[in-house]
């Protein structure tokens, strides 16, 4: 959801020795990224890819990596410099008199506040004016759904995550993207998983992406290069070498092994689960444990059967993931049962508790830049762990793949995008204004800046993978390489687990969270609870309309 890989890099560079501490882990990371994937090609250089390197270099200097947080003035400067696309398509003052309302988040004073800055020069140039509706993240879903159902849509432009597309685009509430916008934002540059069908419904394109999202695996390199732990690991009778787990089976073993151990005088912990409900978002974290078990290569679906919407959440793969959490929790910190993802990622992992956590890119980005992080120099990244065997739901059997462990990165949430509502279509001038603003926010060069500075947004374009640009801007090469690779190798993974963008998907997640909370509290057995989730989901599918859900599920998977 956001990277703010920028601060303190200068300090880190001065302190090369500290960086080297993580070298062992980074080596392991490189090996892991190779495993099961095949190497992905990274574009050789930004200049060779035909990018406006001068401009990109210039905006990356605002305010400069390591020079503190960007201010509103910086947002405006960047917005001004990236106005090229707008100037190509809109004449100065052409949109005078147009007023648009934009609904988005105030996520810790980013998102909407950032857009205000970027769009300020756009407003001055075009003459249009934008009013803002800022929501807290917790209110977003309810506000959106309730406005739609009561006919009180009071916005023209919308910042929205792809999972809501079923509710909004699936109902024909959004405006189709004009061709001139498609040309402006260069959609071929999007990472694989954000290309169609994401952003489209019935072949029509609606979304300007501004963000990419995937779960990656963050670990502590100092743990996995610790000689004492390595010895203890051998003494405990383990045949494998002590190192970064590459499969969930190894994650489990390491987590149980670490219970009661000490690292640098502190209690050692392994993996950190997030059992506390988080408005539906907590379910993604079970999904990340399950995807390697449940996502069979070559088959797109992993959460429901495509033809019937029969939930798979109570199949052996998912139940195994649930059981893994139950088995791991006693080895995790004492307050873990009340930990939501915010807690595991930011309070625990970055605070130095625990050695492995799954999160969106935010944790890895903040590891080095956040003041509250104590793990900046000992943090490594990779795609999600795999599994030795994978469940084939067609045959009902566990299979060992000849290629080795099965990897299936959980492409959770699919990132934020900008959508224009259909109600502006009746007014050509307004429509042009809305799409021009959306294209401005979804511009290629702006994207580089938002991923390099604290913004709440992460990489979503292959053109953001030019390491040379990042290094020139002041980033440490090893660090940024391992971090970006963990992101891009997930985005472009051939066996990525894609989110079903069906209507009400967060209702499924939220219902599951309630039941999972009871499972993790010991009130229900894994299978018993999973069956309850499946039953609740079946009921929900019937309530939402099974036929239409099947249709939309297929559409969402591009089938």
């Amino acid at each position, binding site marked *: 959801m956001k990277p703010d890989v920028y601060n303190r890099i200068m300090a880190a560079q001065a302190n090369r020795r500290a960086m080297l501490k993580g070298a062992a882990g980074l080596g392991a990371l490189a090996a892991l990224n190779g495993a099961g994937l095949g190497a992905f090609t990274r574009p050789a250089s930004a200049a060779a890819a035909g990018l406006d390197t001068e401009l990109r270099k210039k905006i990356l200097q605002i305010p400069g990596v390591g020079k503190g947080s960007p201010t509103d003035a910086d947002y405006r400067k960047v917005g001004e410099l990236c106005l090229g696309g707008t100037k190509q398509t809109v004449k100065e003052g052409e949109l005078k008199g147009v007023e648009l309302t934009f609904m988005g988040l105030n996520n810790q004073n980013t998102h909407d506040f950032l857009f205000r800055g970027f769009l300020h020069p756009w407003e001055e140039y075009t003459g249009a004016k934008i009013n803002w509706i800022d929501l*807290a993240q917790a209110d977003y879903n309810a506000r959106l759904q309730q406005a739609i159902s009561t006919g009180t849509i009071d916005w023209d432009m919308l910042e929205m995550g792809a999972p809501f597309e079923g509710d909004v685009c699936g109902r024909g509430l959004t405006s189709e993207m004009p061709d001139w916008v498609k040309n402006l934002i260069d959609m071929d540059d999007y990472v694989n998983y954000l290309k169609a069908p994401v952003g489209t419904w019935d072949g029509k394109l609606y979304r300007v992406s501004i963000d990419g999202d995937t779960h990656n695996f963050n670990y502590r390199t100092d743990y996995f290069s610790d000689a004492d732990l390595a010895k203890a690991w051998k003494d405990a009778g383990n045949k494998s070498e002590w190192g970064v787990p590459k499969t969930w089976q190894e994650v489990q073993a390491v987590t149980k092994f670490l219970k009661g151990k000490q690292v640098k005088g502190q209690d050692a912990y392994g993996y950190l689960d997030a059992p506390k409900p988080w408005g539906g978002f907590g379910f993604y974290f079970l999904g990340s444990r399950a995807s390697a078990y449940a996502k069979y290569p070559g088959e797109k679906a992993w959460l429901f059967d495509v033809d019937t919407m029969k939930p798979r959440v109570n199949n052996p793969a998912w139940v195994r993931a649930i059981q893994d959490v139950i088995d791991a929790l006693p080895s995790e910190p004492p307050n873990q049962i009340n930990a939501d993802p915010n807690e595991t990622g930011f309070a625990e992992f970055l605070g130095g508790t625990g050695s492995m956590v799954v999160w969106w890119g935010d944790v890895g980005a903040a590891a080095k830049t956040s003041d509250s992080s104590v793990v900046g120099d000992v943090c490594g990244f990779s795609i999600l762990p795999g599994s030795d065997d994978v469940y084939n739901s067609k045959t009902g059997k566990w299979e060992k793949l000849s290629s080795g462990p099965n990897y299936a990165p959980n492409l959770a949430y699919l990132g934020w995008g900008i959508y224009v509502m259909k109600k502006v279509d009746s007014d050509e001038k307004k429509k042009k204004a809305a799409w021009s603003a959306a294209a401005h926010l979804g511009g290629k060069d702006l994207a580089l800046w938002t991923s390099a500075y604290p913004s709440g947004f992460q990489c979503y374009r292959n053109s953001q993978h030019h390491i040379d640009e990042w290094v020139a801007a002041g980033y440490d090469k090893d660090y940024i390489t391992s971090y970006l690779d963990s992101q891009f190798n997930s985005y472009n993974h051939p066996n990525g687990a894609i989110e079903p963008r069906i209507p009400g998907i967060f209702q499924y997640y939220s219902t599951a969270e309630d039941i999972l909370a009871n499972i993790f509290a010991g009130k229900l057995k894994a299978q018993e609870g999973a069956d309850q989730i499946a039953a609740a989901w079946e009921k929900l599918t019937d309530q939402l309309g099974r036929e239409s859900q099947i249709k939309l599920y297929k559409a969402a998977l591009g089938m």
Partner: protein
Amino acid sequence: METRLSTGAALEIPPAEPGISIRHVIGRVLIYGALLLWTFICLFPIYWTVTTSFKSAVDVTQGHIIPFVDFMPNWKGWGSLGLSPDTIFEISTPRTEFLSRFANSVITSVGASLLAIVLGSLAAYGLSRFKYRFGFMRNDDILFFFISQLILPPVVLALPFLVLYKDLALLDTRIGLILLYTLTVLPIVVWIMRDQFNSIPIELDEAALVDGLSVWGAFIRIILPIALPGIVAAFILSLVLTWNEYFFAALLTGSDAKTLPVMVASQTGSQGINWWSMAALSAAAIAPLVLVGILLERYIVKGLSTGAVK
């Protein structure tokens, strides 16, 4: 503990009325001990909030408590709102946002509290002085009718109010919020004010009527001034409740009538918590209430105890 023991021991020495003295002193010590303990319980979390707004992240995660000793205060939290000395003259979207929300919060909460006081005091006086019968409803039933408006969990009123306000074109208007907030605090005002008027002797009304005042004249010229402190008390309670209202504010407002609590909630999201800015916002949000509390506190107590006038 120590002080209690030592003072207790010391007080055994004076021979004159030792029993009373010791008991008295122990009583004093107990009273002040309890008072100080509870003061600590009340103030420490608020102290924690205020100091957190001057902390950087590492001071928060290491639980530093005392400024200048445990940690060096900085303006980070206030800077993120554009309210620190170095940012106050720069453009700042959060500050613009904060100020417009602050203004809306003041207007809606004061407006709603005033309206509730007017409507509620009138109703309370009527219910205290006269016997009504609306159909099957007697005074107690009418009172219960008002109270019952307080019961329903607000969350289920989301859709009805959206529909109602859309049709009345009251969405995203301050007057819409004021009307709704008035409804939510009216029951409390009615209840408190009825107790108030009940404690004012009816002989005062009778005397006023004998002097030739009308019912309304007696109410406005004689009873209202006596009950004024009580009105202030009810006003403050209403103010606090409406000032902090979050749910409907998030639902019914957009860009014009937005209020402060939503911005406080926005400080947590997908990237942990901005402790410092949440603390700064919370502190800024509580400040006007504290001020009102300090200025008008005596009215709350005096107000609710008008019975003493007897």
